[in-house]
């Protein structure tokens, strides 16, 4: 399996993913210096500067979540069916390895590459804020949960790639992500305050279909201490159940569900790949 992992990482390196990684690194590094640049250009007190750094860190974490998920989707969506169609697996499958070994090896390769990138980006962001005299250890606390973003999206795209072409697998993954994002960010406030049952059910469904909002809350909990005042607070009016629906608290079951979701998606992908004809 190690051979497949190494081969997948090598493949990922030679695709333009590496160039994209460098661009994101430089961008994150540059953006994190904006608070300092603003302070020097327009003045302002130390509290405003700290607030600026915190916003840069929170924005950086969001960017890392987004780009690492995109990277994982790009690398995963073409992992199985597209490679079969191109003929890459024609000489590898007759080797004395189980199909699940090939699947898990490729999956591990993609996940390690994506996770390494996300860690590198986090490290770069951390270094830049440390250089400004504002270390933010919250970034490292959030990292394990941030890494679940590429794993979640990558595993889903990987499972879809076991029977769909690269474009369809990435399209369905992005569509599911968009549905989850839309439900959490736009439908949730409407459903909470206007008490629309259908919308509430859709949001509930979207969380089961892709636990992105669950993951968002898990990350948010790690960076609570650096949230700017007012951000993430519950509104001061509304019934308790509405407020809970609007901004759910983290449950012990949340991380287990994310883990279970990833395992299930991986198992479904393996079963489909195991049972399908390859030619």
């Amino acid at each position, binding site marked *: 399996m190690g*051979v497949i992992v190494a081969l997948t990482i090598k*493949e990922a390196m030679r695709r333009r993913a590496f160039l994209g990684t460098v661009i994101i690194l430089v961008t994150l590094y540059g953006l994190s210096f904006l608070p300092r640049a603003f302070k020097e250009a327009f003045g302002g007190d130390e509290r405003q500067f700290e607030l600026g750094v915190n916003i840069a860190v929170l924005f950086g974490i969001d960017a890392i979540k987004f780009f690492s998920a995109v990277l994982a989707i790009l690398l995963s969506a073409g992992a199985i069916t597209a490679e079969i169609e191109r*003929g890459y697996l*024609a*000489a590898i499958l*007759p*080797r*004395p390895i189980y199909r699940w070994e090939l699947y898990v090896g490729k999956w591990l390769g993609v996940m390690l590459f994506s996770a390494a990138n996300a860690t590198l980006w986090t490290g770069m962001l951390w270094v830049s804020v440390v250089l400004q005299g504002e270390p933010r250890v919250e970034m490292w606390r959030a990292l394990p949960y941030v890494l679940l973003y590429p794993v979640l999206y990558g595993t889903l795209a990987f499972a879809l790639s076991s029977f769909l072409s690269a474009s369809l697998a990435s399209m369905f993954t992005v569509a599911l992500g968009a549905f989850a994002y839309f439900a959490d960010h736009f439908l949730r406030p409407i459903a909470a305050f206007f008490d629309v049952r259908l919308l509430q059910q859709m949001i509930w469904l979207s969380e089961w279909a892709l636990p992105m909002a669950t993951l968002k809350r898990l990350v948010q909990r790690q960076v609570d201490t650096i949230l700017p005042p007012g951000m993430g607070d519950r509104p001061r009016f509304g019934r308790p159940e509405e407020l809970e629906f609007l901004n759910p608290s983290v449950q012990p079951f949340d991380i287990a569900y994310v883990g279970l979701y990833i395992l299930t998606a991986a198992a479904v992908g393996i079963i489909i790949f195991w*049972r399908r*004809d390859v030619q």
Partner: protein
Amino acid sequence: MWAIETRNLRKVFRPLLGSNSIVAVDSLNLQVPTGTIFGFLGPNGAGKTTTIQILIGNVYPTAGEAFVLGHRAGALAAKRKLGFLPEKFQFHDFLTAEEFLRMHGRLAKMDGATLQRRIDEVLELVGLAERRTSKIREFSKGMQQRIGLAQAILHDPDLVILDEPTSALDPLGRRRVREVVQYLKEQGKTVFLNSHLLSEVERSCDQVAIINKGRVVVQGALDGLLENRSVVRVELKRVQPRVLEAAATVAQKVHSIDDRCFTAEVASEDDIPLLARAILESGGALLGLQPHRETLEDLFIQTVESEGK
């Protein structure tokens, strides 16, 4: 023990949408003796590639059984002793020839020392020893096919399945592949060769099977299949129906080529003077009469055409 054995093998492809099932392989019974070079022939769409895909474990049969070196096709035990060169392949072209073979050797669970020795041997054998550090993307199509052959034989398999191994090769490359195939036979290996280049198959193979519409139509030793047939090419000023009728009284089969030529299959060479007399007596203006040994191509065309009727 057979190197390959199939019993009533059947594969039906059913589309996800629609009801038009395709029967690719239909009650295929095949026996490939160990230590032979076996030609697997058939027209396009006959089911050759599907059969090979079942043998290497990539495609699951709908019914029937397939065995490779005594193991069920697709089992790890069978795969360990099997080498395969696919027809359509795309190798990881960012690797060098040596890196590529090392990767395949590790996938075949070879130990380090044996792997290094075998890499040297097979690169020499396929004529790529001097290009071992070149990236595969720098290789011509023919060289890629040869590195594909190298990966197929790298782990010293007992059975090598070659799917169109010479399709991208020039005559020199084809000769080298022929030499490799002969070398494998001398080593006691079984080579299962699927090729449309019938002259290549005829030169290399001991046994052949011709399949059509998913079934084995002819199978046996090549010498046996070709020796009993004596075909005469007859050239006339003009081929007339009465001449063909007269020829048919002597020949077992008469096959018109154009308005000046026809071929006649006679039981033995002794019948050729009788054939000439029958043509002349029917009023045919005989210009030439050339006996020739039936080729595999003749056998293939006749077999497939008669199956099509």
